[in-house]
């Protein structure tokens, strides 16, 4: 059984920052893999009903993860994450962006800066995600883009994955 874990969200509007903190019931090395290996990222990164599909992954400092999110209607949003710093099993930082199918960054959407920190917790691993936006308006814009349909189905997702096993 997977216990429902509580996620802590903190919105720091003044600093245009949002933090998401959550515990996972697995050792740090496994959680790190799930966040940094493309074949694992593809299985969870896109909020349902979107699906992430990796085009290329170069997980190293200065490297890029290039992928698209596919919607139930077949529409695709291409995205990239450009990694800045990587400390294996501890943390990574990077910039994300929406882009075209060739990886060219769409400047209509502001990029978000990510910092993800992994640490050992009592029952597994604590993951702290810190997302910094360039403006408050961007925060709103990015969330509104495309994911709305996913929200209703969010909770059906886990059951479905478990049923497959």
């Amino acid at each position, binding site marked *: 059984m997977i216990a429902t874990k509580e996620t802590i969200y903190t919105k720091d509007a003044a600093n245009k920052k949002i933090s998401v903190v959550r515990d996972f019931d697995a050792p740090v090395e496994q959680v790190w893999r799930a966040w940094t290996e493309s074949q694992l990222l593809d299985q969870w990164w896109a909020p349902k009903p979107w699906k992430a599909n990796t085009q290329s992954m170069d997980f190293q400092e200065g490297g890029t993860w290039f992928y698209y999110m596919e919607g139930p209607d077949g529409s695709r949003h291409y995205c990239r994450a450009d990694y800045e710093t990587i400390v294996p099993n501890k943390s990574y930082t990077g910039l994300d962006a929406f882009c075209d199918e060739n990886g060219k960054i769409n400047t209509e959407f502001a990029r978000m800066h990510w910092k993800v920190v992994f640490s050992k917790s009592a029952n597994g691993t604590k993951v702290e995600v810190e997302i910094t936006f360039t403006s*408050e308006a961007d925060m709103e814009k990015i969330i509104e883009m495309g994911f709305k349909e*996913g929200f209703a189905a969010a909770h059906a997702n886990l059951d479905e994955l478990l049923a497959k096993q």
Partner: protein
Amino acid sequence: MRRDVFQGIADPTRRAILSLIALQAMTPNALAEHFDCSRQAVSKHIKILTECQLVKQEHSGREIYYYINAKKMKEVDKWLEQFRAQWESRFEQLDAVLKNIKTKKS
């Protein structure tokens, strides 16, 4: 210039103004007394909050009263709710992925 609720709440003084008038409608003078900054600075914040539609004003005799537009404030909650739902969806999937890694190993 485009204004939205997030610009409204992005400033600490504006957040303080909102929490004051959430308790009761206030005149510009009454409001300014709560702040160290100049009256002009307070009215500038009020102007932005009005443009974001977070604050409404009502005339009562010769006085103007500012009060909070609760409906618009809810947009902030709604936004965070969407953000939250998006992450819940991801994390539930991640739980399943991690469980799968574990199962394969043992």
